[in-house]
């Protein structure tokens, strides 16, 4: 099964918001971010991705900070810094950013070194044999989740309240076949178009199938001008 953490984690989602809205990390509007974070967690929960629990934990933390922010704070004494309930989280985010930056440097180093070919020993070949841990991508997985969220919201709006939900289910495996049939024909396919006017279970299973196939490098993602509202997939060349 696909684990979201294989792509990105709860801290990345926070950084995603901060980056998207160009927020000052030292003055995060917690109330707004907490609500939005929760909305994303609901989506992750609905999709039932492995590891969503870690996001739930972070959402709970944000809500607790939000609550603390609402409490009257004692005025700062001279020479003392006012207590900011966000401080611990911000410190953690900053520390995480340091390592993300370092990881970027290492990845660069890895690329430089990878251009130099030495004789490869059998041991070396064994080390990396049959591994699927090499997917690299230059977008945030939360861009994909954003698109999913919009599609799901729209699907919910279109569904009449009284509508009796059919006990129709879609397996991730079926949706793999569904996606493969389309991308094999060639060209880039819009996620929105793939799941247009389909029921929620169909949308979710398709999304999971896509994540799986991205991880296995069966398909490649392109983020177009639509930015956060849609993305495109094509068969990996």
């Amino acid at each position: 099964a696909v684990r979201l953490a294989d792509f990105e984690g709860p801290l990345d989602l926070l950084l995603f918001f901060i980056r998207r809205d160009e927020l000052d990390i030292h003055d995060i509007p917690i109330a707004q971010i907490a609500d939005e974070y929760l909305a994303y967690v609901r989506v992750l929960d609905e999709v039932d991705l492995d590891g969503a629990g870690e996001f739930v934990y972070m959402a709970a933390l944000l809500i607790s900070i939000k609550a603390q922010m609402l409490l009257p704070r004692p005025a700062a004494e001279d020479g003392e810094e006012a207590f900011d309930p966000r401080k611990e989280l911000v410190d953690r985010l900053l520390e995480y950013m340091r390592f993300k930056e370092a990881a970027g440097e290492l990845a660069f180093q890895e690329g430089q070194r990878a251009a130099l070919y030495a004789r490869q020993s059998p041991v070396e070949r064994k080390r990396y044999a049959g591994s699927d841990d090499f997917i690299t991508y230059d977008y945030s997985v939360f861009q994909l989740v954003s698109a999913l969220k919009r599609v799901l919201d729209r699907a919910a709006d279109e569904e009449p309240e009284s509508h009796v939900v059919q006990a129709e289910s879609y397996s991730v495996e079926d949706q793999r076949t569904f996606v493969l049939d389309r991308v094999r024909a060639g060209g880039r396919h819009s996620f929105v178009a793939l799941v247009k006017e389909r029921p929620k279970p169909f949308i979710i299973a398709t999304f999971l199938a896509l994540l799986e196939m991205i991880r296995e490098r069966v398909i490649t993602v392109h983020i177009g001008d639509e930015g956060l509202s849609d993305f495109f997939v094509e068969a990996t060349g």
Partner: protein
Amino acid sequence: MFPELHQVLEALLFAADRPLTADEIAEVMHTATGDDPPTTEAIDAGIDALNQVYEETGRVFRVNRWAGGYQVATEPIVAPYLKALFADRGTRRLSRSLIETLSVAAYRQPVAKPEIDFVRGVDSGYALKRLLEMELLAVVGRSETVGKPLLYGTTTHFLERFGLNNLEELPKLKEIEELLQDPELRQRKELLDLQAVLGSEPADPADSTESTSDELAEAP
């Protein structure tokens, strides 16, 4: 007729499929001839001489110094051809979650899983397992803290894969202030803005982490 030192070095480094240390080379030479082996300095000078000849005569390989030893590898100019030759093996780069876990472990070593999990905000169990299997990390002991979790550290293979001679050559971990104020990052932010206007995404995946901080750097 006996070969000269630089010729012996060349032969050994060409035949080996891993980095050879000066000590190993000295040992091999002693075993082969029974003579006193050359000093580390002589070997190192011999390597320099070889590289100079390679450059002067248009060879497309060089002796590299990494993982505490010497290893011959091709120059970047021929990389596309070797990539094509080894298409089935691929020039595979570690995924984001693996390289992130690896960098936390590299900078914090010896480090236990709970600490890595905390920094990353996610369970790093799978990533650690894979990095151990790839021999980029190794178990190096046990922590004295509650539960005595295993401690992880990087391996010689890690140095080899990243072309580092030792851990001191790791890129310096940036201070937070640096991260938020780096003028280069500011510059890139302008580039990003321009790209946003032109409607294209930044192409370089290595930039994705930095672009996060770009936005922050510009925040009031």
